């Protein structure tokens, strides 16, 4: 145990008597936290249930009948929502404390069941007729309301994914996780717009101080969607690539600025890596492969990748160092 170590630090004046008392109390009755492990169990449980029910409804339509399935899912959904409603914390514009760890997982399960229920009703009963957009829009509204009402970031992520689906940006295996859909103008422009919109919302929630802690969820989705659609645009818009390059440069600048402002390693890394991917594509496609393609071109590309890889890695290390300097100033 580390008690003697802390005693030593206490003698050196690095730990106050109050903290030392806490440490002694901790070692007198040592209690190990198993929070992560139990959360893992709950998460696996929710995943198993939602996956199981999802498969169940498709495989057993004939035996169970539509009404039975709908009623069963509806009952389970209502049970989850009912539990969360009665256990919910008082509504606040800020961050609320979850009443219990189980609450978060039950709410997540209820939200997943909503998606299964609406999907089932639309596929079997054409609840929204041929207006498939509504089948995404309605659950999206429910999920956004749920996320805000119960203050749940996991459900917010589901809602944002649903928003993307509603706008026609689907990610599934049939379209190679959505990448093959990024080869038409509408999808690229929609995705770029969605990325920008989500980044804008992240500012708004902070500005209006309405669930300000949701800003990171909005921003992360927004950044990835925007960068991916931007690189897709560089590839797709043959004549307009300079414009998209300028947009990419702007996005890199903005994200690096944000990284320094918030001392965020995450935004620094995505700005650098997405930027590197986009610029490398342009250099290889528009410059190196524009000349006569021969063995020298291959060497040029490989040397470019080698030297640029080293340079970008050095840049990343430099940014890391700079961010730490900022961090030390903030914490001082």
């Amino acid at each position, binding site marked *: *145990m*580390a*008690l*003697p*170590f*802390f005693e*030593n*630090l206490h003698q050196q004046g*690095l*730990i*106050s008597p109050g*903290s030392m008392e*806490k*440490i002694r109390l*901790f070692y007198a009755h*040592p*209690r*190990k*936290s198993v*929070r*992560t*492990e*139990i959360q*893992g*169990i*709950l998460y*696996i*449980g*929710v*995943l*198993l*249930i939602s996956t*199981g*029910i999802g*498969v169940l409804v498709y*495989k057993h339509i004939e035996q169970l009948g539509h009404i039975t399935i709908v009623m069963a899912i509806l009952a389970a959904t209502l049970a989850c929502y009912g539990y969360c409603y009665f256990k919910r914390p008082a509504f606040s514009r800020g961050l609320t404390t979850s009443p*219990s760890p189980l609450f978060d*997982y039950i709410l997540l399960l209820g939200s997943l069941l909503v998606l299964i229920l609406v999907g089932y009703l639309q596929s079997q009963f054409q609840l929204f007729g041929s207006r498939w957009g509504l089948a995404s829009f309605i659950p999206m509204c429910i999920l956004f309301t749920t996320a805000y009402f119960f203050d749940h970031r996991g459900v917010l992520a589901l809602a944002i994914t649903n928003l993307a689906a509603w706008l026609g940006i689907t990610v599934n295996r049939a379209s190679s996780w959505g990448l093959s859909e990024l080869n038409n103008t509408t999808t690229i422009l929609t995705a770029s717009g969605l990325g920008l919109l989500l980044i804008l919302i992240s500012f708004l929630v902070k500005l209006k101080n309405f669930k300000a802690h949701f800003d990171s969820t909005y921003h992360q989705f927004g950044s990835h969607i925007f960068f991916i659609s931007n690189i897709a645009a560089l590839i797709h818009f043959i004549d307009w690539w300079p414009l998209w390059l300028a947009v990419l440069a702007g996005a890199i600048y903005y994200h690096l600025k944000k990284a320094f402002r918030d*001392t965020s*390693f995450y935004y*620094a*890394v995505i700005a650098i890596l997405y930027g590197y991917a986009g610029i490398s594509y342009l250099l290889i496609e528009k410059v190196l492969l524009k000349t006569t393609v021969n*063995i020298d071109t291959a*060497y040029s590309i*490989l*040397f470019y*990748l*080698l030297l640029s*890889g*080293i340079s970008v*890695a050095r840049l*990343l*290390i430099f940014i*890391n*160092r700079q*961010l*730490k300097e900022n*961090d*030390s100033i903030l*914490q001082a």
Partner: protein
Amino acid sequence: MIAYSRHELTRLEIRSVVQDASSQDLITREESMAILMKYPSRFYSPNIYIRIGLGLLTMVCISSISSIFGMLLDFRNAEIILLLTALGCFGLLEYFIQSKQHYRSGIDDVLLHTGISCLLIFIGIQTENHGRANSIILSLSAIICYTLAALRYLDRLALIGALASIAFFSFSMWENSPPEMALYPCWTLALILSAIAVIAHQQKDRKGANFHRHLLILLENLAALGAYASLHIITIDTVLTENTRTNSANALNPVAAILYWSWTLAIPALFIWYALRKRESLSIRLSLLAILSVFYAQHQFYPLFEHELAAVFYGLLLLLAGWMAIRYLKQDNSVYSFRHGGDEGDLLGQNPFLVVAGFAGVGQEAPATTDTRFGGGSFGGAGAGSEF
């Protein structure tokens, strides 16, 4: 043997315990900062995102340089390119560790595993015409490479690679054996892994094994789980054979049933009991994995429901178990709790580094340089400090 500075490794261990204490609100943030300032680390051990980024860029560089070599040699001698890449990776790895003080920076991770992979592919190509001996030589080489990597670079993935190579070796030994020897690989594997688990258990608290302690704990647990899995396969096979012979109705005879269920349930229960007694996070997590495997084994060999119903049933069971565990922990009479924090270090473990530092009054002063900075390292809020 260890590539890293022992002094710096000790400091990292100390820092992780201090950060653990801070995450559990035992000490204040200011106190934590002051202690971390007293024990700075010179390792370049960046935040996980930077680590991923550097790892990806290292992969780009290695692929480019290998392709350049390949083109220079007209891709005629693939094995030479692989060997050169492997040697280059190991050379660079040593350079980054010794000169640049990299420790889990992403660059060293990728260099290590690319180097080992290239070396193993090279050995595989060299021995491809040797029939069965190829697999045996390859698996033995993999065991040696991964073991040395784990010992020298304290790399957990390399340790897992070494155990996987042992499994590969056990199966290679009995490749093309007659059907009556079908279970021999499992016996071999179970025997080897059991021996490894016992040795790791004995060695982990040895004074000389301070720096490998985390690896030895992982080795002990993984080897024990691997041995259990191998013996489980043997048990199930034996039970199924016995069952087929004696009972055509596909119901277990009583003796076989007792053997099957006691093996399936008792051993994971023993694992979790041992882990809870030892209060080691890693052991607890791996024993939970063993418990989850009970569901899988039960459903795989004696399914009561269809897959989807089993998923719902076991999911509900897990939620119930989680709920009961939380309720129990809230009663405050357990040695376990549900409080935040406690994932950063090993506050309750045996910390030989800290005992030494504490008793000896080793309050190492930070070097008088001004470049000691905190923030964003891979160890949470305060980070590795130093010149990076």
